[in-house]
């Protein structure tokens, strides 16, 4: 290494040193420790005791664990496609040349700013079975035995999916940005060829923004598998029949309520694998469906 090179390396390392320190202390050490703890009986108060694969085999036979996996997958199967389509529909609508477009966009975006706890409180109140606004409104249109949104295990997940639609503003904005990139020339050419609005959407717009749909899908999977706050705040736990005991919630309970930190770490690593598996599956299916311009 020449002196100049050494000096440049020193400068570079000096500039990134805050991150180097942080990544060592707050990422690399915890990741390694977490892997180690996942093979241990550990309650934070005493030293971890090596128990081999016991946490993992316990997990396999833990019915509550499998229920949390099922809850998480079912919820995402409802909320994710619904959210992606709904947000895309909103983005297409908000992309129309209308008056006060900025105002409309702001209104649809505002709910995504609401802190998760406050949002949970608002919906806890709106979805209240006896006094809630939603059921009163349903009463007005003749539905006199409306669902018990929060108390009926069959409705708790759809309720949360409904709530998540309200906060889809971020996804809408990302779609809107992508829609600006759809080649105008292609749309105009299709129009001249007599393609209907629906045909243009299917054959021009959707292929053009498919990388962004894919991006939103991946972000949705990663976030959806870790959903925690609404269920925790609204039900204080797993809800009726543990129907909203999501993976991250059960993991939290194991770590901080039951003090089974080793088990929680093992669960965290399985979550990692689950995220990897699902995003990998998504990337496989995307190969045919996602179209990259310039390829």
């Amino acid at each position: 290494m020449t002196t100049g090179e050494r000096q440049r390396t020193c400068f570079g390392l000096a500039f990134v040193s805050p991150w180097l320190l942080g990544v060592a202390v707050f990422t690399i050490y915890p990741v390694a420790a977490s892997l180690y703890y996942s093979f241990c009986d550990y309650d934070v108060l005493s030293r971890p005791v090596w128990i081999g694969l016991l946490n993992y085999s316990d997990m396999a036979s833990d019915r509550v664990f499998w229920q949390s996996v099922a809850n998480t997958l079912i919820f995402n199967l409802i909320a994710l496609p619904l959210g992606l389509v709904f947000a895309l529909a909103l983005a297409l609508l908000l992309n129309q040349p209308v008056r006060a477009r900025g105002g409309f966009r702001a209104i649809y975006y505002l709910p995504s700013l609401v802190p998760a706890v406050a949002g949970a409180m608002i919906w806890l109140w709106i979805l209240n079975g006896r006094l809630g606004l939603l059921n009163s409104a349903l009463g007005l249109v003749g539905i006199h035995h409306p669902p018990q949104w929060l108390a009926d295990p069959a409705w708790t997940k759809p309720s949360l999916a409904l709530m998540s639609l309200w906060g889809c503003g971020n996804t809408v904005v990302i779609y809107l940005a992508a829609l600006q990139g759809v080649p105008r020339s292609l749309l105009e050419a299709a129009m001249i060829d007599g393609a209907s609005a629906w045909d243009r959407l299917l054959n021009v717009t959707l292929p053009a923004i498919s990388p962004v749909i894919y991006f939103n899908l991946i972000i949705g999977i990663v976030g959806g598998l870790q959903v925690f706050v609404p269920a925790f705040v609204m039900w204080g736990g797993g809800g009726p029949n543990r129907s909203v005991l999501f993976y991250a919630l059960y993991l939290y309970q194991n770590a901080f309520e039951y003090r089974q930190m080793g088990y929680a770490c093992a669960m965290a690593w399985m979550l990692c694998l689950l995220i990897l598996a699902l995003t990998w599956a998504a990337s496989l299916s995307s190969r045919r469906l996602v179209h990259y311009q310039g390829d």
Partner: protein
Amino acid sequence: MRVPAKLFTYALLIAGAAIFITPFAWMLSTALKPLDQTLSQPPEWLARRYEAPLGGRVQEVRPGALVTEPSLWAIERGASEPVVLAEVSVRDGEWRPTTGTGVPVTVLRTLPASPSAPWREVIGLAGGTRDVVPAASISSHVALRWGNFPGAIRAMRHFPRYLANTLVLCVLNVVGTVLSSALVAYGFSRLEWRMRDPLFGLLLATMMIPFPVVMVPLFGLFRWLGWIGTLKPLWVGSFCASAFNVFLLRQFFRTIPKDLSEAARIDGCGELRIFWQIILPLCRPALVVVALFTFMGTWNDFLGPLIYLTDDRDYTLALGLRAMQTTGSGGIEWNYMMAASTLIILPVIALFFVAQRSFIEGIALTGTKA
């Protein structure tokens, strides 16, 4: 667009906007009601104040959820002390209050219109004296209870402390994240050095690690440091740059021509000065985006404070709001709960309207460039 299509678009947009706004409107509406009106069915949007002539004076009364028929109303005074508020006597076939004080009273239930009904049956509830007045003499008008906001602040008990904690965390996190992320992003984009690219690869890789993986060891680490129950775990890490923000800023820094730095170097300008006086001012929009998102993330954070803060006098606002669920005796006091929610949401929405452009650009950037 053809006219019918245009009308359809507007109809959809307006209907959707109404639905999206309804939860906010309902929150505000509930926040401005007295507690008993939050329970009324069917729900009403505007809080009302009910008044009745009692003891020769017009006083506030609180109609309970049970009051439905227009007839004589039995009224319970709200005070718990055994002070005689009003006595009722029958004169000219009508119930009349004969004495009274200024304490607000609560309507318990309606009496049958027949004056022959013994009013003692109605007041067969524990304690207190009840008045009976004809429903026709009770008037009401729209009156919003702005006092619920101070009420909610009192109900949250340590609100000033929660607010102070949240603001301290916001300031520390914003300063820490912006400074350290910019510094690191500079090292990863404006300087050429060995190991830069492999290290940047490591940085990208750390973005893939879900929080639950590091959650337990971090808790153990902070416990070992004696930081559990203090604010430290919630801000110290921000001074070590966050991978996502480094990535975002690096994308920005790379767009500035190299010649600018070279010229400065030839003029004898040191790297820190180039960073501080040339690059940072040019990247102000990106720094604003990072600052905004960090502020929002800190203000809204729930899981972090939940794990690390143990004493309910040291909560943040988000935790304090959740704690309100359990502080009320019996059910949740929804008017206070919604008032407190409004107070927590308002700053974020205000910030959005002040910095709308940065917000939208920032989100679009993270979505399209990532």
